[in-house]
Each structure stands twice: as structure tokens, then as C-alpha cells.
């Protein structure tokens, strides 16, 4: 809806003026002034129509206002309040004026009438009538005298002549003689063009038949009064019929005017007296219509003015609400140049300024956000863990790599002192201690190598710290960057061990064959020439040499094997089936009382070298069997399931025994070469196993089961293929214990 169009003043003011004019015209109309008096009824009808229209318009507007008020439309309450105030200001005085107007009008009309005036008018009228009676009596006497003369005259021409003379002498306007049958016998008139005399009516004849006189004052059509006098004409002669002599005597103009004046005043008074109640009713109706029309127009104009007044306020309130809700583009139309217009203009300027400031802030925030996102991206993709600390040592932020390296959820430690990290996770205590120490000393730049004893092995971190410049309180603090160099160190160590093994194999293996050959030659050449204890001693010595050389050869071969690069051929393999095959080979192992397979059928295919895995598992099974010697009901459990520790998609294989477990002091280095708990072991079995697993992209960890026994956890990569591609048959058993 076009709100402004609804508030255009033209139709409203035009309609109001028309109806107001119609109601004002009632006043002269009720006084019967000219044409307005003739249209009084029409004006009343027009006013009633106007009142109906104005009532309807007002009712519609009030209804809409109340509906808006109930709907809690903005500005409706204020508009309703204004309308009520305006209406009261208009209607209360109008009602008072109406009441007193009706009262005084009634009293005013009543005051027109007075008993004395009425009596005076009646007396004046009576006086006029009496005066007329006197004149009438005089004229009757004269006409009776004339009738006597007429009675004496017998000649028709004489009668006409006599009537002519008598009329002139008596100042009659007409004199006529009639028979009682109504026939005109003779007449005389002052009107030359009048052919027939004025005929007396039946009443006159009836009076004459009774030998009585008829005398009556009559008003004339053109005004004035005349006396109609009729007397019987009775002749002395026997046989003459009674005739009727009528004389029309115009009253003197002075008499007539006085009489008319008295009568007019009396009639006017009587007319007003009779019309008193209708007059009051008309005045009250007129006053009521005018009052009603005025009140309705005032009420309607009050509503109209209120709506015009409230409209910019409503728009202003809506604009304010829009700004409060964050819409700074809101601009209000300026419809006037008054104070409200100035207010709306100021509001528009304000929102414009806010919008500009908001845009500047948004740009700044956007830039800041972009920089922060860029920094987060950089930190996220760093291979180093990053921690930022407040000046008081509180952890402020971290990157995801830091969580990955430390294997803890650092979010839980944000806004908490870094020492709580070590308190909560004991393996991280060296890290938190080192950081705390440097921050307490307020070191500018520092670097430490920190070794963490995690449950999954020893973890070496290179940790560097930097104190941030103290520009602001919020930006000051420390940045800690650390790298997990465990793999690097392990690789370096493995390479060193490989080099050692290779050199050892090369340097030791070469002399072993001549030693062995020499020992065999000594044995073959001299054993048969000796006897007794010498023979036995030589025999024992050469055997020992040969056996130890064999042993050293095996040891050297093992080193050589460890030093050689792995020749692995990963294929898509069904792990559960491979495990079942491997276990079948060990069913006869008396050291293991129970084999338990807890294999998840839903695990996906893995991408591994079956021979390598077979070697790894053979080593693990043999190690477990050796560990469970002397332990009743030794049980080996193989379990597969979807990986839960690693974020990568992998399959977890757990090998668990019920032996004594790993010595705690060896847990961090159990996969290092020459680390073994066996008296005759080479200490290379688990080292080789780790190489096989890691060469295939997997990982291996060793820990002690809280329920007792050793637990080796292997993560194997999942294959992208959906069908096995590597045959399990024909794989040779390369199990060997080191």
C-alpha cells in the first residue's frame, strides 16, 4: 500500500469542505431564506448522507487504528493516543456548546410568545371586526333604504336607472336585483367590462327567503375587503314576489389596510405559535446535524492529521529498528522541511555515517581475517608444532600439527598454564618444564632437545622458543616451535647400524672361512695322530672353533640381511586370510596353549607384501612363544579391526600374548637393533620387523597390556583395490627367530 498516497490531503479536505458547507447551509435554509428554504429537505438529506459517509470513514479509520494497535504496529499506540486527545478536545466543547445551544434555543423560541401580546393582538382583531360590523350595519341600513325605493319602482328601466343612481350615491361597486329563483333582474356595476353581476350563493338566498338580511365581509382575490350585503325587496303591492337586492360595498382602502394589517399580525402570531414545536424540532435537527457533521469532520481530520503526523515518526522508528538490526543502508524519504524533515535528514546522515564506518570496519576485519586465515593456513601446513603462550605462560593458541606430534587435544588446555599440560600428561612433563623454565627466565631465544617417553616409544623433539616483542599486552608472550625428530634420529641410527652391519659382515665374514677351513684342516690332519687327552682336546677345540665360526657366520648373515635393502612387493591382500594361514603353521607349537583369532570380517583389503608380513608375524609369534615358556595356559591373540588411532585409513593388527610383557626400560628402544631379552637372540628380529612394516607405509608399536602380557600394534595401509591381487599360496615360510 502506498502510505503517502493514502495521506494525500486533496480528497479529504474537499469532502470535508463539501459536507461542512452543506451543514452550514442548513442555517439559512431553516430560516426559509429564498431558494435555500425550498431545498431545506434536500440539504437535510445531503447532511444525513454526509454524516453516514463521515461516520463510515471515521469508523473504518478507528477500526484500522485499533487493529494496528492490537497488532502492535509501530506508531499505532502514539496515533491512537493523539486521536483520543484530539477527539476529546473537539467533542467535549462541541457537546457543551450543543447542549447549551439547544437549551437556549428552546427558551428563545418560547420567549417569542407572551400572553399579553396575544391578548393585544386578539383585541386588535376584535376591534377591527367591531369596526367592520359598524360599517356593515351602516351599509345594511342604507341598502335597506335603497330596497324600499326599489320596491316602489315598477318599470324595468326605472329599476335599472334607480340601481345606477343608488350605486353611485351609496359608493357601491356593484348593485344587483335578483329574483329568489336566482335570475338577475337588474344590475349596475362600476366595472364597465363586467357583464354579469356577482351571483349570491345559496346561503344568501336562504337568508332572504327568511326575510332576513345577509351581510358579510369578504376578502378580494386582488387584495382588499368588500362587504356583500343582501336585503329582501318586499313590495306593498299584492302579488309582487320578494326579490333580493345585493350590494357589493368595497371598504375604504384605509380600512382595508388597517384591517389587513391587524389580521396579518394576528395570523403571523398564531402561525408562529402553532409552528413553535415544529420550529424547535427543525432548529434542533439542524443544530444536531451541524454538530454531528462538525464533530465527525473534526474527528476524521484528527485521525487524518494524526496519521500525517505519526507517519514520519513511524518511518523514523522503523528506520531506527532497521539500524538496530544492522541494516545501515536504510534511508528515509524526506517529505517536509519542518522539524520532522530535519530530524529525518539527520537520521539519514547518521545512518550514512554509520554505514561508511561499518564498511571501513568490515574491510579492516576482512583484511585481518584474511591475514589470520593466511597465518592459520601457514601454521596448519607447517610440519612443526607451534604453540603461542601469553606472557604469564598461559597457552593461547596452537596448530594442529602440535596436537598430532604431542598426541593430545591441546584445545582443552587453551587459556590454562602450560604446566597443566605436564601435570595432566606425564609424558609431556619434560616439554612443559622446559617451556616454563625458559618463560620464567624470560629468555629471548632458546632451543632444547627434549626426549619424551610416550607409550608408543621414545619421542625426540627439537624445541625452539622466541619471546614476542611487547607491543601490546595481548600480543606479548612467547612462540614455541617444535619438531618431532624421532624418525630422523631413528633413520640416522638405522643407517649407522646398517653401515656397521655391512662393514661387520664384510670385515668378519672374510676371515671366518679361512678360520673354519683351517680348523677343519687341523682336525683332519692332526686328530688321527693324537691319542688320549690330546685327541679329545683337539677334537673339542676344533669343534668349538667350527661351531663358533658357523655361529658367527649366521650372525654375520643376519647383519648382512638387515643391512641389505628390502625387496618388498606390496599387493592387495586379504589380511584375515593371511593371518589364518600363518597361524596354521604354528598350531603345533607346544609353547602356545591357545591361539585366539579375533578377526573383523569388515576390515578392508590391505596393500602389503605378504611374505614380509609373514616374516614379521612369524617373528612375533616365535617371540611370544618364547616369552610364554613355563607359563601355563599361554594364549596368543590376533585381532584385526579398523584403525582408530591413526587419522589415515588403515587396518590395525594387534598381537597380544599372556607372557611377562616387555621390560619397561626397553619399551622406548625395543625396535632398535641388538635390543633383546633373549640370551641367544641377535636383537635384530623386531628391528627387521619394523623395517618391513615401515617400508610398506605402516607403523608398529609395542606396549604392555594393562591386563598383562605384551601387545604389538601394527597399522597397515588400506588398498585402493576392491579385489585381492596377490596369491597367498606358494609363499615360503621364512620364519626365523633372532
Amino acid at each position, binding site marked *: 500500500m502506498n502510505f503517502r498516497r493514502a495521506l494525500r490531503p486533496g480528497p479529504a479536505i474537499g469532502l470535508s469542505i463539501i459536507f461542512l458547507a452543506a451543514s452550514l447551509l442548513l442555517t439559512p*435554509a*431553516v*430560516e*426559509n431564506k429564498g431558494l435555500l*428554504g*425550498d431545498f*431545506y*429537505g434536500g440539504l*437535510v438529506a445531503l447532511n444525513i448522507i454526509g454524516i453516514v459517509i463521515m461516520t463510515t470513514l471515521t469508523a473504518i479509520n478507528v477500526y484500522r487504528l485499533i487493529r494496528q494497535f492490537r497488532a502492535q504496529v509501530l506508531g499505532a499506540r502514539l496515533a491512537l493516543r493523539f486521536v483520543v486527545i484530539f477527539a476529546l478536545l473537539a467533542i467535549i466543547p462541541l457537546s457543551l456548546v450543543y447542549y447549551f445551544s439547544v437549551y437556549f434555543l428552546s427558551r428563545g423560541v418560547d420567549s417569542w410568545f407572551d400572553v399579553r401580546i396575544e391578548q393585544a393582538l386578539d383585541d386588535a*382583531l376584535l376591534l*377591527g*371586526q367591531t369596526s*367592520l360590523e359598524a360599517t356593515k350595519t351602516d351599509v345594511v341600513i342604507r341598502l335597506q333604504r335603497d330596497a324600499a325605493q326599489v320596491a316602489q319602482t315598477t318599470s324595468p328601466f326605472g329599476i335599472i336607472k334607480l340601481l345606477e343612481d343608488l350605486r353611485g350615491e351609496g359608493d357601491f361597486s356593484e348593485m344587483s336585483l335578483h329574483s329568489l329563483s336566482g335570475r338577475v333582474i337588474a344590475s349596475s356595476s362600476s366595472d364597465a367590462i363586467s357583464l354579469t353581476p356577482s351571483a349570491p350563493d345559496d*346561503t344568501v338566498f336562504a337568508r332572504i327567503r327568511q326575510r332576513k338580511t345577509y351581510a*358579510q*365581509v*369578504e*376578502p*378580494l*382575490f386582488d387584495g382588499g*375587503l368588500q362587504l356583500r350585503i343582501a336585503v329582501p325587496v318586499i313590495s306593498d303591492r299584492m302579488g309582487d314576489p320578494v326579490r333580493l337586492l345585493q350590494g357589493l360595498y368595497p371598504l375604504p382602502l384605509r380600512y382595508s389596510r388597517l*384591517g*389587513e394589517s*391587524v*389580521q396579518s399580525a*394576528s*395570523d*403571523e402570531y*398564531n*402561525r408562529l*405559535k*402553532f*409552528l413553535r414545536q*415544529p*420550529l424547535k*424540532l*427543525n432548529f434542533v*435537527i439542524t443544530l444536531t446535524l451541524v454538530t454531528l457533521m462538525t464533530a465527525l469532520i473534526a474527528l476524521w481530520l484528527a485521525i487524518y492529521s494524526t496519521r500525517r503526523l505519526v507517519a514520519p515518526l513511524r518511518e523514523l522508528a522503523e528506520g531506527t529498528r532497521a539500524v538496530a538490526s544492522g541494516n545501515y543502508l536504510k534511508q528515509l524519504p524526506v517529505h517536509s522541511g519542518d522539524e520532522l524533515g530535519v530530524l529525518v535528514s539527520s537520521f539519514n546522515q547518521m545512518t550514512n555515517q554509520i554505514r561508511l564506518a561499518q564498511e571501513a570496519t568490515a574491510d579492516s576485519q576482512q583484511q585481518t581475517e584474511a591475514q589470520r586465515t593466511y597465518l592459520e593456513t601457514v601454521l596448519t601446513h607447517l610440519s612443526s608444532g607451534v604453540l603461542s603462550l601469553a606472557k604469564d605462560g598461559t597457552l593461547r593458541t596452537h596448530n594442529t600439527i602440535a596436537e598430532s606430534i604431542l598426541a593430545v587435544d591441546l584445545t582443552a588446555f587453551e587459556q590454562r598454564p602450560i604446566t597443566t599440560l605436564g601435570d595432566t600428561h606425564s609424558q609431556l612433563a619434560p616439554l612443559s618444564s622446559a617451556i616454563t623454565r625458559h618463560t620464567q627466565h624470560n629468555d629471548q631465544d632458546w632451543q632444547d632437545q627434549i626426549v619424551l617417553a610416550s607409550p608408543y616409544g621414545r619421542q625426540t623433539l627439537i624445541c625452539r622458543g622466541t619471546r614476542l616483542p611487547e607491543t601490546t599486552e595481548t600480543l606479548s608472550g612467547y612462540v614455541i616451535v617444535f619438531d618431532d625428530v624421532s624418525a630422523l634420529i631413528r633413520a640416522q641410527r638405522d643407517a649407522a647400524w646398517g653401515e656397521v652391519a655391512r662393514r661387520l659382515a664384510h670385515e668378519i665374514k672374510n676371515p671366518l672361512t679361512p678360520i673354519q677351513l683351517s680348523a677343519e684342516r687341523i682336525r683332519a690332519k692332526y686328530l688321527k695322530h693324537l691319542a688320549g687327552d690330546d685327541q679329545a682336546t683337539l677334537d673339542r677345540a676344533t669343534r668349538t672353533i667350527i661351531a663358533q665360526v658357523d655361529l658367527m657366520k649366521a650372525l654375520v648373515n643376519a647383519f648382512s640381511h638387515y643391512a641389505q635393502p628390502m625387496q618388498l612387493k606390496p599387493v592387495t591382500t586379504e589380511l584375515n586370510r593371511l593371518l589364518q594361514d600363518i597361524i596354521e603353521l604354528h598350531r603345533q607349537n607346544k609353547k602356545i596353549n591357545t591361539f585366539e583369532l579375533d578377526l573383523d570380517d569388515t576390515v578392508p583389503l590391505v596393500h602389503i607384501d605378504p611374505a614380509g608380513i609373514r616374516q614379521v608375524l612369524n617373528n612375533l609369534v616365535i617371540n611370544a612363544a618364547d616369552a610364554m615358556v613355563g607359563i601355563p595356559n599361554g594364549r596368543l591373540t590376533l585381532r584385526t579391526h579398523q584403525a582408530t588411532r591413526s587419522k589415515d585409513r588403515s587396518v590395525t593388527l594387534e598381537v597380544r600374548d599372556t607372557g611377562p610383557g616387555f621390560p619397561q626400560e626397553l619399551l622406548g628402544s625395543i625396535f632398535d637393533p641388538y635390543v633383546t631379552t633373549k640370551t641367544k637372540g641377535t636383537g635384530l628380529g623386531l628391528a627387521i620387523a619394523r623395517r618391513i612394516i615401515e617400508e610398506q607405509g605402516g607403523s608398529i608399536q609395542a606396549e604392555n597390556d594393562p591386563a598383562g602380557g605384551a601387545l604389538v600394534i601394527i597399522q597397515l595401509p588400506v588398498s585402493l583395490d576392491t579385489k585381492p591381487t596377490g596369491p597367498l599360496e606358494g609363499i615360503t615360510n621364512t620364519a626365523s627367530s633372532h
Partner: protein
Amino acid sequence: MLLASTITTADFKIVGGGAQITDQHLSSHATLDLSLDPRSATAIANGIPIIICIDLELVQNKLWPWSTTFLEWRYPVKLSYHSLSRRFTVTDQRKKSTAVFHTLGEALRQLDRFSVIEALPATIAKKQNLVVRIRARIDTESLPAPLRLISALLPPWNEQSQWHEWPVQ
């Protein structure tokens, strides 16, 4: 004064009548039965003249429901009371004459016989199926202003007879 002794209620009736066209002249006559309400009689006695208007129409009946009105005449007669002479008067504006009566009843009886002769245009005088309609009514427009609004709404001031019609011979 002698108000109409026979007047009880207002009632305007057309008792009978007739019409004929002779030599392009319409001759109509009707017998009326007019009586006034006591309030109207009192108003006359208090100096308020009442004009009784006799409306005459010449129409042509046709097959369709409505008819065509060719000519219409209005004959006002003023009833008033002359207080100086204590007589009721009947003033015929058309005849320019004033008649005087002792009672209002006599004055009304004066109006019982209505006759009129009007000249007609030749084109109308030759038409067939002509009908004369007549009615008598109080001319409320001539009443004083205070009575005019009331007369439009309330009896007896808006008294009028039914239309009475008869074919033109």
C-alpha cells in the same frame, strides 16, 4: 370558528370522473372526496394556508408496462382562514377567484367537483389509447419551512390520493 365538523381523518379520494377530446380540447371532470386531518384543520385555523393540488396527466397506454406521458397540468387551490371576517376562503389561482365559506367542510365540498378544459396540440389530440390520470394531494412544498421537513416524513401533511385514471372518449 367553525372547523369542519365532519372532518375526522385525512382522506383524499377520487370517486369518479371522465374525459373526452372535442375539437382539440380535453374536457375532464372528476368527483373528489376530500377530508383533512384535525391537525391540518387546526393549522389552517391558525393562519397556515394549505394548498391542495390536483394533478392531471394525459398519457398513452401501450403494450409495454410503462406508458408515455404527453401533458401534465397542476391545479393548485389554496385553503385559508380569514380571521377578520371569520370565514374560510378557497382561492383558485387558475380562476383568480376567492370563495368564502362559513366552515372548512363547506370549503372542501366546494372542491368536490372538479372540471377543466384544456387545449391540446393537434398531434396529441389524434392519438389513440389516451388516458387521463388524476390525483389530489397536499402541496408540501408550499408549507412553511418548519413543517416542510415533518411533512416529508409524517402524515397528515403528506396526504395524497391514489392516481385515478379513465380512458379518453
